[in-house]
């Protein structure tokens, strides 16, 4: 054993026969390895403790099920298996971010090359620069901010209304047999109606105002929430329910203590799905009858042949949808950690 055992990698070469000596050398190395490989090295230390003065002390250490006590014990590896398995590349945060950005960057470069090389006429494929200029132009006239704001507002209002209704109706259908029997066939039929089929009816009923658009988006947000919440509440673990009942919970208390918390992770993923659906329904609402918003920008630019603005609107929809989804995704991770 030489002093080269100061890196986590080098520790793997320690001979099991001289494991005790290796532990002495390795002790210096452990303080220098990073946090990620700390735990595995501590495991190695545990192995030494068990194998060295084998018998009572080793067994005692095993019984201490708290990993922190183990890590304060002797440090150092034994045998080839004690090497610190590094965190894999795909588990690292920067790699996830960079990997996710890779394809958009490649597409951007390909787009730039295709549009500037003349392979595709500019009337079919504007260059990224043209799209950027169109965006700046719209922003300077105060339209871009307005369009984004109005579209986002419609999505959020429609999503809030639809998701709230979906939660309530989903709870009724999921918790009550009678509610299921009375409501679910009708709701299943309504869900089968394509989003665009509502548009003429909503325009006739609610005129070309904000209401018709918000209602359409609410319809879009309602169904994922309703479906998933009803299923989640219906399939709460029967054993947990029985345990809750056996300890005297019933009615509202059973709902609030067992059923609702058990459904929380599903509810959050339902909300995430509903938000994505809201963006889809937004464009359907704005395509038909509107004077503002990203959907209007799409139609208007199509009529005027402004392909750069069409590209702009599509990219904005993609970015906005992804951003809101990411925010809900963070919330979802928190909720799953807390409730599951």
């Amino acid at each position: 054993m030489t002093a080269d055992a100061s890196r986590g990698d080098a520790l793997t070469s320690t001979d099991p026969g001289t494991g005790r000596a290796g532990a002495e050398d390795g002790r210096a190395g452990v303080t220098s390895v990073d946090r990620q490989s700390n735990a595995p090295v501590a495991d190695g230390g545990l192995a030494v403790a068990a194998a060295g003065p084998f018998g009572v002390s080793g067994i005692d250490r095993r019984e201490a099920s708290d990993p922190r006590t183990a890590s304060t014990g002797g440090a150092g590896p034994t045998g080839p298996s004690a090497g610190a398995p590094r965190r894999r590349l795909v588990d690292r945060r920067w790699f996830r971010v960079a990997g996710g950005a890779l394809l958009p960057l490649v597409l951007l470069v390909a787009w730039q090359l295709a549009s500037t090389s003349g392979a595709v006429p500019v009337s079919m494929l504007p260059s990224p620069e043209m799209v950027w200029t169109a965006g700046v132009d719209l922003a300077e006239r105060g339209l871009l901010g307005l369009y984004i704001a109005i579209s986002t507002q419609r999505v959020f209002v429609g999503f809030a209304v639809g998701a709230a209704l979906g939660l309530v109706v989903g709870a009724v259908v999921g918790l009550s047999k009678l509610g299921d029997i009375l409501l679910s066939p009708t709701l299943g039929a309504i869900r089968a109606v394509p989003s665009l089929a509502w548009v003429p009816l909503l325009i006739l009923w609610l005129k070309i105002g904000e209401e018709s658009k918000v209602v359409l988006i609410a319809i879009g947000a309602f169904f994922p929430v309703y479906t998933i919440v009803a299923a989640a509440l219906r399939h709460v673990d029967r054993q947990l329910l029985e345990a809750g009942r056996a300890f005297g919970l019933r009615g509202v208390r059973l709902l609030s203590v067992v059923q609702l918390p058990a459904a929380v992770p599903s509810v959050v993923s339902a909300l995430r799905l509903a938000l994505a659906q809201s963006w889809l329904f937004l464009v359907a609402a704005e395509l038909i009858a509107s004077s503002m918003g990203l959907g209007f920008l799409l139609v208007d630019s199509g009529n005027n042949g402004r392909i750069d603005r069409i590209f702009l609107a599509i990219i904005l929809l993609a970015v906005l949808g992804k951003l809101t989804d990411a925010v809900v995704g963070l919330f979802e991770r928190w909720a799953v950690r807390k409730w599951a």
Partner: protein
Amino acid sequence: MPATPTSTSAAALPVEFRGVGRAFPTAAGARPVLRDVDLVVEAGEILAILGPSGCGKSTLLRIAGGLDRPTSGRVTIAGSPVADYDARSAIGFQEPRLLPWRTVAQNVALGLPRGTTRAAGRAHVARLLELVGLAEFAEHRPREISGGMAQRTSLARALARSPHVLLLDEPFGALDALTRLRMQDLLLEIHAAEPTTVLLVTHDVDEALQLADRIVVLGTQPSADASADGPAAEDATPGAGIRQTVVVPGTRPRDRGSAELAELRGRLLDGLGIDRHGAARGIQSTSTIPAFPY
């Protein structure tokens, strides 16, 4: 030996089964599982219910706790019939059945009787966690603790109810052998500290001998052919009843290696249809329990 309650826990109550039968409806008609079970469990007694799997042990326990209803006969606790999810009993399930979003302490608090004040509840939970050795894990989530710890939490939750009758449905069945032995000792400690009537369903003969005052062996009646073995014969007979009642000698805690218990163990296994293997090699086994010092 009905123990006198020494702690704050509720007094132990007797449980009485009178002609209890339970049949489950199936496509082919009602399938009887239990038949004519007559049993009196004394207050403060630990009674083990033994039997092969599928013989209705758990059903009997669930009926005693009001989680299931008998199709015939009746069950009473201290003379009054068992209500649905009876508040006088608490059940420890085969699985821990903890709420994963609650901490260990919050899960135990679920068992507290309604109307417990916050401060009293917290003190009671802390005491129970101390009793089952989980005080330092009070703020852990169920997924962060081991199976044995989860089962101890489940036991503490049942005890939080200060039950008059504690029903345990193979509570240690899923644990490894060593953890199981520790849990058995823990149960005895708890019973000494908070005496209550305990009905313990198990398929482990040693566990029953170690813990119980009396052991009831459940099984199909040995009517037509006593040597019937295999599930086919079981299906043919209409429901299980009490085949054997054994008073376990001595006082707890018992020596796990005692020859007296070993003999009793052999007899119980025999009653469960397990060959003792001694007879196969021509070794005579005594039918009486040898007295110390043998």
